[in-house]
Structure formats: structure tokens, C-alpha cells
């Protein structure tokens, strides 16, 4: 009888290693320390970073501390253990340990192996005491992390210099520092069978549309994946249209950008292990806005916005337009310009479309190489790019000088879009437009643009039309799209995100105070 029980238990333990953490939900913490240690040692076979420290409480009650080396703050754990080792008390005393002995602020009780292990693997220190089927986890984390730096991907001239890091707690704290209100909610969700990545869905209660919030949470909860290594995984699995080249989720590594988004009734998704925080829902126009627009004077911000719209069009259409005009509509150019283009193209062996493709593709390759290469080699790439592709190719008569100018303008134009993922979309769409232009001329470009616009009008991000507030039109919201209105005029939050609490600031009181001080 005893023998069979024993073997069954061993079988149980042997199976443990094949199970993922979430499946250990129904596997309770045993009251016998010996048994627990056996289970843990089996689970963490060959895990050199796992530490199991056995010790005796003062009246020779057996206890053990488990933690992962490198994830804990050694000094604090030492202090906690010292407190435990001088403890007086009985076997049933885990509560009294929690309430009277341990000088640790973050402490919680767990009863299942799932909770226990996820805490320990997350960096907590687990305490097991013989005779208690409740384990304690101490939140004394001390893993290595990067310090808060200026985000390199989103530089500003004016504005805060701090950016998110890879640690999710640091990130949520950075956001909390911006919005000190209990309305700022941080709902935690764990995703990933093997990675058990912590996600935090953050929103401002009372401003966010509850239906939107529930939709976002439900979409995230339905994700079943082995690991989430970057927020891009989440983005692809919660976006509405997976095939669209346009990003339907914005990301940012700036706390101020995220806070501003929450204030517009949007929702932020923090993912542990990456500084990139996702923001939903997103419209096309938000992709054209930078946080600095709101810190600079509004005239400047408005001008810069229009500059971006202009260069957006340029980056999309210029190569296609050059191909179309120089091969179909020569009458559209001023004579002198046409003559100099003709002179430059005289010795070029390729048709305009081939020339454009060569240059555009080598530009994309240069850009990619510039990002991927080690920084020390990066300079070599730019020299090669400028000299070989730019000058030598023109002098050798392989590509014409006007084409180099077109490609350079396009390249610069695509970098004026403040969000990298949006500019990638436009850079990709340039190529089909060039093909269309090469056999249909400007008509082809127009057809292509109409198709793109049709697709964009059809696109939605969490139920919000991608082109709103332009289509469907909401004139009141133009103040933050066509222009950047002065703050005193932007009295209401944008309506298209479905915000609950519309009022944002009290213009009347601001104006009154300004007048009285005169």
C-alpha cells in the first residue's frame, strides 16, 4: 500500500518537468518540507542558478529559502534569513513569521506551486517552513538592469529625457510619476507558456471607454504562445488587420508620450523585457505627430506638421513621379529641366524604372546595413554609400544625377515621419507605385494612391477608423490634426477614441487669470 503510493508520487514528480508553469495551478504546496524540497530539486535539476538554502528556525523547525541567483538582492535576503534564524515559535507559525518576524515590505502567501514558482522565477525569494502548506514569497528583487536613459529612438530637443528600460516595474513607475492618480490602473496579465512574461495594461479609469478596455484585455488574454520576447509579438497578435502594411499599434519608449496617450483615452500595454510600450488604438494621424509638437510653440508645431505631411507625400510619390514623368509625360516638365534631365540620361544604359529600382533598393540596403552593422563599421558604410552609390555611379554613367537627387530626397522625406513603423510602411508602398508608374504613368500612380487610400479608409484599430478624424469627419478634432491648436483651445479630448470624460482644461479660468494680471 505504502509502496504503491510512493511510486505514484514519484511518477507525479517525474511528470512535473514536462508541464508548463500554468499547468501547476492545481499542484499545491505540501506541508512537509522534505517533500517540497524533493519536488523543487526535481524541478530544478541541472539549474545551476537555482539556490535552495536549508536552515533551522530557532526551535529546530526546518525551513528553507529558495531563489534564483542573480535575480535577488543578496543583502536584503541575508537580512531576512537572519531575522528568521532567531525566530521563536511553533510549527504552525508561518502567519506569525509573516506578520511579526520578517522585516520585508513586499510579502505574500502562496499555496500552489504555480504561484510559488512564478514568483521565485520572477526574482522573489521563497520561504518554505516545515509543517505549513503555505509558502511565503518575499519581493526582494535585485536583478541587473539598465539605468533610465534618454531614448535613442525618439530624441527630442525640448522635453523630458527619460525613457523606458527593459524592467517593467521601472517602466510602470516612470508612468506613475507622470500621472499621480488612483484612476491610473495597471492591470497585470501573464502571457507566454515558457516565458511567463508580465504584461501591464494601463489606462485611466473614467477617461477610457470601458468597452475598448475590455476588448484590449480580452484580446491579450486570448494569446497562447510559448514566449513573448518583445512587444512586437503582442502587437501582431492584437492588431485588427494582420496583412496591412500600416501599423495599427503605436509604440513609444517615452513616459510622456504614453501618459499623453492615456489622457486621450487610449490604452498602454507594457511588456516586460522591452522598453517599447504599445499604445492602442492608433490612427494614421497619430503616426504623424511627435510628442514635441505639444511642447513647442503651436505655430512651429503646426508648420512642422505640414512639413511632415508634405514630405510624407514626397517620400511616397517622388520616385514613381520621376519615372512616370520622364517616360510618359515629358511635356509636363519645363523645357530647360527636361533638357538637363535628357542630357544627364543620355549615356545611361537602363530605362528610368530600372534605374530607379537600382537606386531605391541600394538605398534601402544602405539604410539596413547602417542599422545592423556594429557602430565602428557604420562609418565605412556611409562612405561607401556616399562615394560608390552616389558619386561613382553617376560618374561611371550607370545612374543619372537626377535619379540620385530623387532617391536622396525620398530618403530624407521618409525620415521626417516621426514614427519609424509608419515610415517603413510608406517606404514599402513606394515600390508598387513605381511599378504602376512604369507602365501606366501618372494614371498608374493615381490608381495606386486610390488603392492605398481605400485600404486606409477601410482599416480600423480597435474599432477606431484609421483615418479618423478626417474620415469619418469630425471637425472638432481637426484642431490636433491639420494644425496643432494652442493648448487653451484644445478644451476637449479627441472624441474618436471614445473617451468618457471629455473636458480637459478650463479655458475660461485661464483667460480670466491672464486678464486680471494685466
Amino acid at each position, binding site marked *: 500500500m505504502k509502496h504503491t503510493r510512493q511510486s505514484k508520487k514519484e511518477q507525479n514528480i517525474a511528470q512535473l518537468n514536462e508541464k508548463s508553469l500554468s499547468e501547476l495551478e492545481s499542484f499545491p504546496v505540501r506541508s512537509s518540507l522534505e517533500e517540497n524540497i524533493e519536488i523543487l530539486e526535481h524541478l530544478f535539476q541541472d539549474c545551476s542558478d537555482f539556490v535552495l538554502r536549508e536552515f533551522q528556525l530557532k526551535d529546530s523547525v526546518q525551513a528553507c529559502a529558495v531563489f534564483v541567483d542573480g535575480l535577488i538582492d543578496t543583502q536584503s535576503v541575508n537580512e531576512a534569513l537572519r531575522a528568521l534564524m532567531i525566530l521563536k515559535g511553533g510549527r504552525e507559525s508561518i502567519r506569525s513569521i509573516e506578520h511579526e518576524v520578517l522585516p520585508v515590505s513586499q510579502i505574500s502567501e502562496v499555496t500552489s506551486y504555480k504561484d510559488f514558482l512564478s514568483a521565485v522565477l520572477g526574482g522573489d525569494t521563497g520561504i518554505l517552513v516545515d509543517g505549513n502548506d503555505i509558502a511565503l514569497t518575499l519581493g526582494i528583487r535585485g536583478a541587473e538592469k539598465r539605468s533610465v536613459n534618454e531614448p535613442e529612438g525618439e530624441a527630442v530637443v525640448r522635453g523630458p529625457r527619460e525613457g523606458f528600460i527593459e524592467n517593467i516595474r521601472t517602466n510602470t513607475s516612470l508612468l506613475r510619476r507622470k500621472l499621480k492618480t488612483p484612476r491610473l490602473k495597471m492591470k497585470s496579465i501573464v502571457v507566454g507558456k515558457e516565458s511567463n512574461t508580465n504584461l501591464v495594461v494601463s489606462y485611466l479609469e473614467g477617461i477610457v471607454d470601458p468597452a475598448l478596455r475590455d476588448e484590449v484585455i480580452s484580446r491579450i488574454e486570448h494569446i497562447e504562445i510559448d514566449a513573448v520576447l518583445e512587444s512586437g509579438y503582442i502587437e501582431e497578435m492584437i492588431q485588427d488587420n494582420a496583412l496591412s502594411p500600416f501599423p495599427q499599434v503605436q509604440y513609444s519608449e517615452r513616459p510622456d508620450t504614453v501618459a499623453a496617450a492615456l489622457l486621450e483615452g487610449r490604452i498602454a500595454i507594457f511588456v516586460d523585457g522591452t522598453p517599447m510600450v504599445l499604445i492602442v488604438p492608433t490612427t494614421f494621424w497619430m503616426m504623424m505627430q511627435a510628442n514635441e509638437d505639444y511642447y513647442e510653440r503651436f505655430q512651429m508645431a503646426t508648420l512642422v506638421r505640414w512639413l511632415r505631411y508634405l514630405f510624407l507625400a514626397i517620400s511616397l510619390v517622388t520616385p514613381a513621379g520621376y519615372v512616370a514623368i520622364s*517616360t*510618359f509625360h515629358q511635356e509636363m516638365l519645363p523645357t530647360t529641366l527636361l533638357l538637363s534631365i*535628357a*542630357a*544627364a540620361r543620355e549615356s545611361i544604359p537602363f530605362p528610368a524604372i530600372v534605374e530607379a529600382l537600382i537606386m531605391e533598393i541600394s538605398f534601402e540596403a544602405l539604410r539596413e546595413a547602417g542599422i545592423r552593422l556594429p557602430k565602428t563599421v557604420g562609418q565605412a558604410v556611409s562612405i561607401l554609400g556616399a562615394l560608390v552609390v552616389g558619386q561613382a555611379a553617376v560618374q561611371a*554613367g550607370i545612374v543619372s544625377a537626377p535619379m540620385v537627387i530623387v532617391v536622396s530626397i525620398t530618403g530624407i522625406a521618409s525620415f521626417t515621419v516621426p514614427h519609424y513603423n509608419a515610415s517603413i510602411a510608406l517606404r514599402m508602398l513606394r515600390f508598387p507605385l513605381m511599378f504602376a508608374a*512604369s507602365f501606366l504613368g501618372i494614371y498608374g500612380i493615381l490608381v495606386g494612391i486610390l488603392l492605398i487610400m481605400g485600404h486606409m479608409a477601410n482599416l480600423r484599430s480597435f474599432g477606431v477608423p484609421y483615418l479618423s478624424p478626417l474620415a469619418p469627419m469630425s471637425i472638432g478634432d481637426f484642431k490636433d490634426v491639420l494644425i496643432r491648436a494652442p493648448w487653451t483651445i484644445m478644451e476637449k479630448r479627441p472624441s474618436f477614441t471614445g473617451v468618457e470624460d471629455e473636458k480637459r482644461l478650463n479655458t475660461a479660468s485661464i483667460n480670466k487669470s491672464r486678464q486680471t494680471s494685466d
Partner: protein
Amino acid sequence: MKRSSRFKIASIIVILIHSLLLTGCWDRVEVNDLALILAFAVDKEEDGLYRMSVQLPLVSSLGGPSGGGGGTSGDKSYYVDSATGKTLREANNVLQSRMSRKLFYAHHRVIVIGEETAKSGLREILDVIARFPENRLTAYMVVAKGKGFDLLKAQPQFERFSAEAMRELIKMVGVTVTVKDIAQMLNTPGVDAYLPVLASVDSRPKGKSKEIELIGFSMFRDDRFAHFLTLEHAKGIRWFQPTFYSYATDFDIRKNREISVQVNQGRMEITPIVRNGKVHFQINVHARAAIIEDHSGTDWGNSKNLRMLENKLAANISEGIRTTLQEMVKNQSDIAGLGLVLARKYPQLWKTSFRENWDKHLKAVTFEIRTRATVPNIGQTTENLTKEEMR
């Protein structure tokens, strides 16, 4: 069910994409397969055929990427070719058959009409210009003294192409006539057409270049050349233009003492008066001018002197306009559009009695010119700098 409809859509898309590729690039013409016509000339041969000459830039000599600036030294940067035909299109086809590049008309800036062609009528050649979409109605038309061919062959020093020189020249003079203008002048009763006349002349001191010079205007009756108006007689023509371009004129202020003034602003009002079936035009001219050169040494600070100048200037302007109008009347070519002014004031009368034979009536027309000139600007000094100051 759903799957099959998806398959259908997918196959339709694939077929559409393939059909797109099958079309090839049917209209595609690379820039280096075009022969850009900068100007063309139409001459009438003695056997009644049209000779069409085209001026084509030699793109490769314009300075490509490695050439490092072409310039006009050495080889010419253009060449001129011509062919004859019963129609312009036929001549074009002959030309095309010896061109390796497609003749491209959309960029011509000037159409040169040879003297003989002008005499035989413009309607025929205007037809192909207006009918063929590649041609531009904004191209300027000029009449050549002699053969139009010679104007295309001229090699002015400033510009790389004589076409460019012709265009800039007539723009600077301010009497520009486009194809559209000519068409309107020809189809509007009460207005006759006129065109600037250009000639190719040797530069002086004699160099290797042939320069283009504006020598006058040709007056048309209907679509045929009627009379050549010399520059001397054409002084008034600019006053009848819709926009006034400033110009300089000089005259004797005292005996053998010349003064030059720049007329900066001008306005003309024409009022037709019909009395007893006789047409009289009251022409009021207002001009503002500035002194630019004075050989008389007069003190222009004195308002009496200034008034004298203003009167002389007014007389000068009136005289210019009168000469032009007299030439017009004499040759029965209403290039000023007096008929149109009359038609606007008396539409009914115009229809019943003048419209049909305005040419004839033009002979009997009388006019009176009143000019008011002011000279508010006498330049930087009141008197010649070298003159001794009055104590």
C-alpha cells in the same frame, strides 16, 4: 462555399495582375529616345510645298555627367533639319524617317512663319498646330524676314538655342503673340492679327555669331500678310497691348538736345463715337515716366521746365500712336482692335452696318489722341552733376 469564392477572387486577381504585365509599357518613351523640338519654322517653297524646319538640341553635347559643362564653344549644341511636303504632317513624316528619335513637339516655344508662308495665309498651318495635342497653344509665333529656316540656324551668343533667344527677345520687348492669341485674333471680327518680325543679323563688330533682332511687326488682313510695320512706325503698338510693359523713348527737348525717359506706367482708354454713320475714336492716354538721361542740362527742379517736358513727352507718345494708327488705317488692318471697341459700345450698330466690311470702314475712321504725361521722377539729381552749383 466560402473557400471556393475566395479561390475565385484570388484567381481573378492573379489574372488581372498578369494581364497588366502582358500589356508591357506600351506608351513608354524614355527621354533619350525623344528629339525635343525647340522651335519649328514653316516656309513656303516656290512649288507650293511647305518646308518644315525643326531645331533639335543635341542632348549629348549639352554636358552630361562626365562632360563637365558643354557651352557653345566648339560644336554646336543643336542642329536644324528640314523637309518638304504638301502638308506639315507629311513634312514631319519625311523628317521622322531620318530621325533615330521620336520627334516630340510638346516643348517647342516658338513657331517661325516664313515671309512667303505669311503671305499665303496662316489658316492652313494653324489647323495642324491646334489639332495635334502635343502642340502648345502657349508657344509664341513670329514672322521671319526671309526664310524661317535662317532664324533657326542663327547662333546667338547669349543663349544656346536661337529658339530661346527669340522667345526671350519678344518677351522682353513686351509684344508677345501666342498661337492662342493668333487664333483669337483671326476668329474675332473687328481685330486683325499682327506678329513680331525677327531677322537674323550679323553681330557688330563682326563676329562669328548670327544674332536675332526684332525689326518690326507684320500686319495681317484676314490671315494674310498685309504690311510690314517698321519699328519706327510701330511705337504705338505697345499701347494697344492688354498689359503695359515699361519702355524707354527719347526725343529733342531743345534743339539737338536729347532727353531719354522711361515710361513706367501707361493706360489707354478708347471711346468710339458714331455720328452720321461716321466713326470717330477718342483716345485718352495716361503715362507716367522717369528721366533716365538728359543732354540738355536743364534744371528739372523747376516745375516750369518739368511741365514743358511733360508736354513734349505727351506729344511724343501721341505721335507714336498716331503713326501706328495711320499705318493701320492706310493698310486696312485693324491690329489695335478698334472694331472690337466699337462693337462693345454699339453692338447693334456693329452687327448691322460695320461687321461685314470693317476693312473698308476703317479707311474712313477718324481719331483724336489726347495724352497726359506726368514725370514724377527726375532721377537722382535735378541737374547734370558737373554743372556749377548756383550760389
